[in-house]
């Protein structure tokens, strides 16, 4: 036991003391802060930038649609239906400038359009919108410009145009201009709440974020620390230090110490990340203010039940142990990093198999595919935690899946220990599949 502790201690201290650990651990929170703040920051920056993109409207409709459109593009969005925090953010944004309206006849349109194309090419103009009788009749309009690829810009014009056309048609139907105005200025905001057996459980979107985040975190930890174990085993093998160690402790103790030590490093790192994640989450208001972005978008943190939390930790520990033992076996099989890259492919494939189902499962966490993928012991440690946060899982199903992962974990550790015991002192040619089988049988 004291020897196991000695091995664990060495694995832990040597890794935690390395500068890389410090860099990754510090970089983690920075990364979290960035993904939390950056999208908001960028979209606000994007809106500010679009203020510069004043474009020209060629209005050949003869109905004054251009003016209506310009009003709508230049106005602030209606913030009445928004939560106060978000409304404040929106109101803090600069006003989009009014496009320039050129009213002209349908005959003159082609010539003017050609001129404007040249202007855009010479960068004197961002772009131009053409509206004519087809717009009034069928809602068809065309935009041309350097920013034609921008989805945000296109959507903004589309929605303004829709609203302008609508108000014009309503007026044509005999309703007063002010009534038409208030009728068409309507913003839809759909909030999707997740309903569980215990009642409403926070926003569905937030749950999906949390679930996806947890799955990615598990995936990256398993890959990262699994590879660390592989490299550790390989180092002991290639430097031949393994033989000295196994004259003092059994290979099983060495393997267990390695898996535990590296696992402890992983837990330390995630604890740092988790606490800093929580810190940034609670302090995000101050952070947004610091960056001059007003209040952050509201997002309720999804509720996580204690059962889910315990299951989450169990899945991580089992998943990590399962893959760590496989990576250790690969490390003991090979003699160089190049060989290791090749030989670890099957293990990596098992992990990638889990991650390619991430999105389909996230989109439909109750579907048949999601169920199957979360039952397979190799993908369960990654997919199941995600499903758990996205939807309700029965305690029976949870227990069955955990039992399956546990059984597979035992099988992998048992097999890996046998390969490890023999492989550690084998130099030279990489073993064939038949030789591996013999190793497993004979040790």
């Amino acid at each position, binding site marked *: 036991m*004291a*020897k196991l502790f*000695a*091995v664990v*201690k*060495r694995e832990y201290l*040597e890794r935690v003391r390395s500068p890389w650990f410090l860099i990754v651990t510090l970089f983690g929170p920075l990364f979290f802060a960035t993904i939390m703040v950056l999208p908001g920051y960028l979209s606000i920056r994007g809106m500010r930038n679009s203020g510069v993109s004043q474009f020209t409207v060629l209005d050949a409709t003869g109905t004054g649609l251009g003016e209506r459109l310009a009003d709508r593009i230049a106005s602030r969005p209606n913030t009445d239906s928004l939560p106060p925090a978000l409304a404040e953010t929106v109101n803090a944004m600069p006003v989009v400038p009014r496009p320039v309206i050129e009213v002209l006849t349908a005959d003159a349109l082609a010539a003017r359009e050609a001129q404007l194309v040249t202007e855009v090419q010479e960068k004197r103009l961002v772009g131009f919108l053409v509206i004519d009788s087809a717009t009034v009749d069928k809602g068809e309009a065309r935009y041309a410009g350097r920013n034609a690829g921008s989805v945000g810009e296109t959507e903004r014009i589309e929605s303004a145009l829709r609203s302008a056309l609508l108000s014009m048609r309503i007026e044509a139907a005999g309703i007063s201009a002010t009534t038409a105005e208030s009728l068409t200025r309507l913003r839809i905001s759909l909030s999707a709440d997740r309903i569980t057996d215990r009642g409403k459980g926070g926003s569905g979107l937030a749950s999906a974020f949390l679930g996806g985040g947890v799955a990615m975190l598990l995936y990256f930890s398993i890959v990262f620390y699994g590879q660390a174990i592989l490299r550790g085993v390989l*180092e*002991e093998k*290639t*430097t*031949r*230090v*393994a*033989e*000295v*160690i*196994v*004259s*003092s*402790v*059994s290979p099983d103790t060495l393997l267990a110490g390695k898996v535990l030590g590296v696992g402890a490093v992983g837990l330390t790192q995630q604890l740092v990340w988790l606490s800093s994640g929580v810190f940034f989450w609670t302090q995000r208001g101050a952070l947004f203010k610091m960056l001059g972005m007003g209040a952050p978008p509201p997002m309720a943190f999804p509720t996580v039940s204690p059962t889910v939390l315990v299951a989450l930790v169990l899945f991580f520990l089992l998943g990590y142990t399962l893959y760590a033992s496989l990576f250790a076996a690969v490390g003991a099989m090979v003699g160089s990093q190049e060989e290791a890259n090749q030989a670890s492919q099957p293990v990596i494939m098992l992990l990638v198999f889990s991650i390619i189902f991430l999105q389909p499962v996230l989109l439909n966490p109750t579907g048949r595919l999601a169920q199957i993928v979360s039952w397979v012991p190799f993908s369960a440690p990654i997919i199941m935690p995600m499903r758990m946060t996205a939807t309700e899982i029965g305690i029976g199903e949870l227990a069955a899946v955990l039992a399956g992962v546990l059984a597979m974990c035992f099988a992998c550790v048992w097999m890996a220990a046998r390969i490890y015991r023999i492989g550690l*002192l084998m*130099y030279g040619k990489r073993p064939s599949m038949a030789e591996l089988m*013999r190793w497993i049988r004979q040790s």
Partner: protein
Amino acid sequence: MTDLALDIRGVSKRYAAHVAVRDLSLSVPRGTVYGLLGPNGAGKTSTIRMILNIIAPDTGTIHLLGRPHSDGAIQDRIGYLPEERGLYKKMAVRDVLRFLAELKGVARRTADARIDEWLDRLALRTPEKDWGKAKVDELSRGMQQKVQFIGTLLHDPELVILDEPFSGLDPINAQALKDTVVDLKRRGKTVIFSTHLMDNAERLCDAVCIIARGEKVLDGAVAAVKSENAGRTVALALEGSASPAVMGVLQDKALVERVDDQSRFFEVELAANADAQVLLRRILEAGARIARFERVQPSLHQIFLQRVGASGVEEGMSGHG
């Protein structure tokens, strides 16, 4: 408590392609320096790994210090230096040594004191430079060997097993190693080492075992082994180098079974019924001036060649016998 440090009985080890060790039995009394001699691929490393319970024998039993070798507690009383040496390259020397000591159950405080003592003794810590603080891969090869050697002895083992300890050592480190072995013996420890360098074995060992092709050829106290194989060896030294006529005499199969030719010094093994006096007369008749002509006990080297012969060295078996 038995007085045997090592007791091997009927041990065999077979790998897929070949037999590494065949029905090997040997015993090493406590407090002796014991040499395991044999050509490359003879089964020395396999034997040592089985002694240390790193690989399991197919048949037979092994006892260390009176206990079965699989007894976990016995590991702490044994120091092992493998043939293939290595340390964690990125670790500080002192940390590696602490770790190795800890694996043998040595308390931190005791370990630190011994590490200092050893670093001083092997000149790895001088007033100018403390190599204990350096990383392993900053050390020269010779220094790394010293560190590895310290790691083998930090827990003050009763039984020290060294696999090819002299390979790759420069003369200074080789001397330090010999001194340490002598010192260990003086303090009542048992040292078992494998080598194919007969000179070292002859000077250091109380007893030896010669193995070839996985089988024991002979074993016993060095003095006994030599006297059993004595009587047929003549040490011959010439003034000036040997003329072709003299070489002709030495190659006469009726007189000489084997000659170890070292230019002006020869170790001559007489043929079965040859008379040393006849050999002396023939050499004088060939016109040589003799500086020394003496019937001697054969060297271990000579015995080794005589008993194992060239056929004992199996071709194509590299290093891990």
